[in-house]
């Protein structure tokens, strides 16, 4: 276990990098279709909601120190039901990995590589994912820390949009009504997913529980602020009537900027963004591989890794039309909402009611 532990700082970067992923490019669009120009408020509300899920996940993992979700489930629900839920969770995380691949493929195929066959795009990403998950969580975390400065580059690019914005587009605030705003925050929660990676990675952290909750909560807070900033920027860059025909507003916005050296800023942005996608993909693939390890009682997760990777890649190739992609997105988003955001709260309730707790854990 020793070489497998991560510090609480590394945990911060793990969560940040898992949260930033495919969602960021189309988030302003998907929020707009529901909450109109008040989408950015929905996002902030969603950011508050997920803090509850985070609290639940942390409390749950606190009761069972150094246990991943796959070890907690059988202890909570008994052996048989635990096995069923382990299977569901493994499948769930595998499908999130698949969704990341699908969305990544559709955007790359649409924006840069028009002629390259889809399976090539998908297999390249899968190969990267597989290579990374054969290493230990500490090595993965180190990589995530190294690539984090790249986020600053993305941030600076988006900042450039302020040379041509129409601040008035955001008014009148609250035009859509509070109820719609709160309802559409469920879509925003999906984009903020990634904190659920702590269900597994918390088990490796060697920080104190107080430090752990601080870093996870702070990581989500940072991402909520970053996303709100991005959504807000695109809403004042595009006209409300225009944004409904631009599914990737962030890229489209960057495409319009050109500097004397870089003409197509969106291509530079995409190349960096792919790394963010890769980090999310690696996280989820790792979690899925961990699930396979528990399910089949393997000694280490590396043994199951190639099968998980190939499974994800093959499924991700199936949808090839835009509408199919949207359908997959819709259903996987829905299951994510249930299993990643809501179910941890239920699990915590079960643990409290049945007074399940690992010996040695500090009683609260």
């Amino acid at each position, binding site marked *: 276990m020793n070489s497998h532990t991560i510090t609480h700082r590394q945990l911060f970067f793990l969560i940040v990098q898992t949260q930033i992923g495919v969602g960021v490019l189309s988030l302003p669009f998907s929020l707009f279709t529901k909450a109109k120009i008040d989408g950015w408020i929905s996002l902030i509300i969603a950011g508050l909601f997920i803090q509850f899920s985070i609290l639940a996940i942390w409390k749950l993992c606190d009761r069972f120190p150094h246990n991943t979700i796959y070890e907690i489930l059988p202890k909570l629900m008994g052996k048989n039901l635990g096995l069923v839920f382990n299977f569901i969770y493994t499948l769930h995380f595998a499908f999130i990995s698949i969704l990341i691949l699908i969305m990544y493929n559709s955007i790359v195929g649409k924006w840069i590589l028009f002629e390259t066959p889809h399976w090539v795009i998908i297999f390249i990403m899968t190969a990267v994912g597989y290579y990374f998950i054969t290493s230990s969580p500490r090595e993965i975390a180190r990589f995530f820390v190294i690539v984090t400065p790249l986020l600053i580059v993305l941030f600076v690019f988006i900042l450039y949009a302020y040379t*041509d914005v129409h601040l*008035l587009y*955001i008014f*009148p605030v609250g035009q859509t009504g509070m109820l719609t705003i709160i309802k559409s925050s469920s879509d925003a929660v999906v984009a903020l997913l990634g904190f659920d990676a702590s269900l597994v990675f918390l088990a490796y952290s060697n920080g104190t529980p107080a430090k752990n909750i601080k870093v996870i909560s702070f990581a989500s807070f940072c991402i909520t602020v970053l996303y709100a900033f991005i959504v807000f920027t695109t809403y004042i860059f595009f006209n409300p009537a225009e944004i409904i025909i631009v599914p990737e507003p962030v890229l489209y916005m960057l495409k319009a900027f050109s500097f004397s050296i870089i003409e197509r800023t969106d291509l530079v942005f995409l190349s960096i963004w792919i790394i963010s996608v890769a980090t999310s993909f690696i996280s989820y693939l790792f979690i899925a591989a961990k699930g396979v390890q528990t399910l089949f009682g393997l000694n280490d997760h590396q043994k199951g890794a190639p099968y998980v990777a190939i499974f994800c890649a093959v499924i991700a190739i199936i949808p090839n039309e835009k509408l199919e992609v949207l359908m997959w997105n819709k259903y996987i988003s829905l299951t994510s909402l249930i299993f990643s955001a809501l179910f941890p709260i239920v699990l915590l309730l079960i643990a409290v009611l049945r007074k399940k707790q690992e010996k040695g854990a500090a009683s609260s």
Partner: protein
Amino acid sequence: MRKILSLLPVLLLLTGCWDQAMLNQTKLITAGGFDYTKDGKVLTTAAVPQSVAAEAGQGNIVNQIFSASGNTARQSRLRLDRRVAERLDASKNQIILFGEAAAKKDIYQLLDVFYRDPKSALNAKLAVAKGKASDVISTRFEEPKMSSGVGEYLRDSIRSAEESATVPKENIQTVCPVMFDPGQDFALPYLEPLKKTVSIRGVALFHEHKMVGTIREPLSVTYTMLTGEKHTIAMSTTKKIFTNKKPELMNYVTFKVKKNKRSFNIDVTPEGKVSAEIKLKMKVVVTEYPRDNLATPGEVENVEKRLSKKLTKDANKVIQKLQKMNSDPYGVGRHVMAYHYPVWEKLNWKEVYPKIDFKASIDVDVIGHGIIE
């Protein structure tokens, strides 16, 4: 070390080969023009600069002009492609021109191709040409013969007009949000081809997707000032502030704007009556004043007063023209929409705008006058 060396060949595999665009198999369009033919078809004209090796080893640019018509913009492009040996590529396009007749119909329908294609150059300039766009593009200009293609030449002409604030800064993407906005319109440079040059005559005003009129050059500078443009490299204009001096030349003063501050007030009464006022506070430097007596504060004040009066008059003239054309480039409607949404919903802005009370005033402050008094 051997490990690293063995990894090097992998680099060769990373590039892939599906998505390559060979430069020798493409023709890069630098200027495109749209017109309508008599039977309502879209006529696309494209200029492709081709470098021809001259004898002394110096490159020389020859502009090849192609044109084709079709039912839509894309169809005419595809037909254009069939007339050219290589593949036409618009990713380095510098300017898109609309013939005046085409601009008066609808420009969004023609621009759809550019918004949709991920490879298109969204930072290309847009302009309206007096007469036909194809005439402008196929004119044999004096300047571009040697150095660059017609696209670069037109783009640079527009850029220099932007620097002198004759036209506002716009490109394909910047007009798009405004085009969709029911509460704001935009303006594009208005070109006129002369025999061997092209002259920027002012701005072409739009309402929704259609061109509705023009404001000619020196007044177009006042138009740009009213947009609240802070200052451009050479936002200068010449105004007649005296009427009785001889020779005629003595009546004029030329100044350069150093700082331009706009306050935009929109009032909506409870009954839904809209009134708007633009106030500009300008700090200017006098760059030409043949009367040469700016030594006393009284004289400076006199010039300031007369300039303010003259500019205010011009500004109101611009606004009157805009209301007459029913073009709202300053976004009065947008302000009403943003701050008085319930009122906005009741108004039929298209009918209300020409009738609203809309005024402007410009206050000039002379802060310098070159190195002589």
